[in-house]
C-alpha cells in the first residue's frame, strides 16, 4: 500500500488570532505556527498502518503546500514516521484568503496522477483549523472518483478495502470501503499522535523532500470565492458574576427573560 498524507501548516491551535485593521485578513506576523492537529492524526494513522504488517505499506509520503517554512512541518511528519516528503512551494496564503480547498484538491490530483504512481490511500485531516472548510478530503475523492470515508474514528483493513467507523451527527456508523484506492479524513478520536522522539528527528533530516513550484502544476490557483473583507465578530456585552443560585434564577427570569 502506498499512502499519501496531507499536512498543513496553520496557526497553532492555542493562539488567539487578531484580525488586521485593514480588513485584509488575520494577522500572521510572528504568530506561532504548527501542524494542523487533524493532519497530525492523519500522519499518525499512516504510520500506524505502516507498522501493521498486514497493511503491507511500502511507503508513506507527506505532502504540504505553502511557504518555505512548510519544510519544518514536513520534517515533523518525517520524524513521526513518514518516509518521504513533497513540498509544493507558494507564498500565497493558505488560510482561505488566497489558496482555497478546490485548488489544494486539484494539486493532490496532479500529484496522484503525474508525480506519484500507485497511491492507494489518501489520508487527510477532517478540517484545517484556520479555514475550517473540511473540503479537501471529499473533493479529492470526488475528483478521483474514489470511495471516501470522512470523520473516521476507527480504520481497519478488510479484504481489499477498509472497514471504517465514522462519526455522524447522532453517533457513529460503520461503512465498508470496498477496495482501494480511497480517501479517508481523520477525526479527533481516531488516534493519539505520537511525539517525534529526538533520534527520529535526527533520522528525519536524512529523509528526502522533493520540492516543486506551485506554478509548475497546470492548476488554476485563483480563489473562486473572493474574500471581500475579514472582520471580527461583534463582541459580546460584558457579563457579571452572581453570588448565588437565587440571584442567578432571578437574573435569568427577570433580566434575560429566558425562564418562565
Amino acid at each position, binding site marked *: 500500500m502506498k499512502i499519501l498524507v496531507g499536512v498543513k501548516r496553520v*496557526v497553532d*491551535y*492555542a493562539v*488567539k*488570532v487578531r*484580525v488586521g485593521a485593514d480588513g485584509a*485578513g488575520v494577522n500572521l506576523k510572528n504568530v506561532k505556527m504548527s501542524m494542523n492537529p487533524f493532519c497530525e492524526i492523519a500522519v499518525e494513522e499512516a504510520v500506524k498502518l505502516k507498522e501493521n504488517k498486514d497493511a503491507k505499506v511500502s511507503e508513506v509520503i507527506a505532502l504540504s503546500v505553502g511557504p518555505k517554512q512548510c519544510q519544518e512541518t514536513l520534517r515533523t511528519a518525517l520524524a513521526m514516521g513518514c518516509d518521504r516528503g513533497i513540498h509544493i512551494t507558494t507564498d500565497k496564503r493558505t*488560510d*482561505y484568503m488566497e489558496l*482555497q*480547498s*478546490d485548488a489544494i*484538491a486539484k494539486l493532490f490530483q496532479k500529484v496522484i496522477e503525474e508525480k506519484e504512481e500507485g497511491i492507494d490511500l489518501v489520508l487527510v485531516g477532517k478540517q484545517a483549523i*484556520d479555514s*475550517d*472548510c*473540511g*473540503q479537501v*478530503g*471529499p*473533493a*479529492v*475523492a*470526488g*475528483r478521483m472518483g474514489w*470511495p*471516501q470515508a*470522512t470523520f473516521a*474514528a476507527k480504520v481497519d483493513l478488510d479484504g481489499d478495502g477498509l472497514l471504517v*467507523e465514522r*462519526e*455522524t*451527527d*447522532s*453517533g*457513529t456508523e*460503520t*461503512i465498508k*470501503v*470496498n477496495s482501494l484506492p480511497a480517501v479517508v479524513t481523520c477525526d*479527533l*478520536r481516531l488516534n493519539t499522535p505520537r511525539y517525534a522522539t529526538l533520534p527520529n528527528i535526527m533520522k528525519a533530516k536524512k529523509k528526502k523532500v522533493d520540492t516543486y513550484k506551485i506554478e509548475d502544476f497546470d492548476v488554476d490557483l485563483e*480563489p473562486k*470565492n*473572493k474574500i*471581500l473583507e*475579514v*472582520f*471580527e*465578530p461583534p463582541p*459580546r456585552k460584558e*457579563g457579571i*458574576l*452572581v453570588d*448565588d443560585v437565587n440571584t*442567578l*434564577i432571578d437574573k*435569568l427570569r427577570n433580566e434575560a427573560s*429566558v*425562564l418562565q
Partner: protein
Amino acid sequence: AAQKLHSGTITLLNTNPSLDTSNLPPSVSCVINAKAKDSLAETMSLLIKKAQDTKSFTHILAPGTKFGSNILPRAAAMIDSSPVSDVIDVLGEDTFIRPIYAGNALAKVQSTESVKVLSVRSTAFDKAELGASSATVEELEMDEEQTLTEFVSANESQSDRPELSSASVVVSGGRGMKDGDNFEMLFGLADKLNGAVGASRAAVDAGFVPNDMQVGQTGKVVAPDLYIAVGISGAIQHLSGMKDSKTIVAINNDAEAPIFQVADYGLTQDLFKAVPELTEKL
C-alpha cells in the same frame, strides 16, 4: 437560507420515502423524490449531479452538519464548483459570510462560480415555516447504484430530549463533571428546562459521554436562547461552538476560567452544590 438568497424557485431533493409533501415551506415549489439505497456520499453526490445536470440549479445548499459536510464537497467537485461551507449570513445571490479561525474572524465572501454550492450553519437562520404546500413532485432514479462503499451498521443515540443542534436550552458539562455518572445531574437540570445536554471535548475524550454530544469548533455548533456551561473551562475551541448563544451562564469554581469572559452570568461555586440547588429551585 435559500429563501434569503432569492425569491426564485426552490427545489427540495428528498430521499426520505415518508416525507409528507403536502406540508412544506410554501417557498418550495418542487420536490424531487430520489430513490437512494443509502445516504453515503458516493450515492448522494451521484443524485445531486444527476439533478444538477437535468435542472441546472444556480445554487445547491445543504446543512453544515456532518451529513452535509460529507456529501457536499464531493458533489461540488463532481460539478467542478468551489463550495462555500458554514455560511452564517446571505447578503445576496453571490455574497455570503462564513466564519474562519474557529469563528474568531468572519469572512465576507463573493462566489464567482456559475453554480454556487453552499453548506449552511443551521443555527444562523430561522426555520422556514411549514404550511400547506402545492409543490410539484418528481421522481429521480439512478441508472446504476454505486459500488464504491457500503453501509454496514449504525450506532446512534436515541433520545426523547430535544435535539442538541436545535434545542432552545442547552446544559453542557466539561471536565469538571469528573465522571459520566455525574452527567445525570445535568440531564435532570436539562429536563426541568426542556433542554438538551452537550459536552466539551474534554468530557467526551475522557469517556464521560458519547461524541455526538460534543459542542465546539469540530463538534456541534449551537446557538440556543440559554446555554449553561457546567465545569467547563472555556477553551477557544469550545467557545467557537457556543458563543452565539443568546444568554450564557457559567458555573465553575475556578474564577480564572476563560468561560467567564463570554458568560453573561457567572457563578463561581462548586457545581456539585450549585447544579442540584438550581434544579431544585426551578
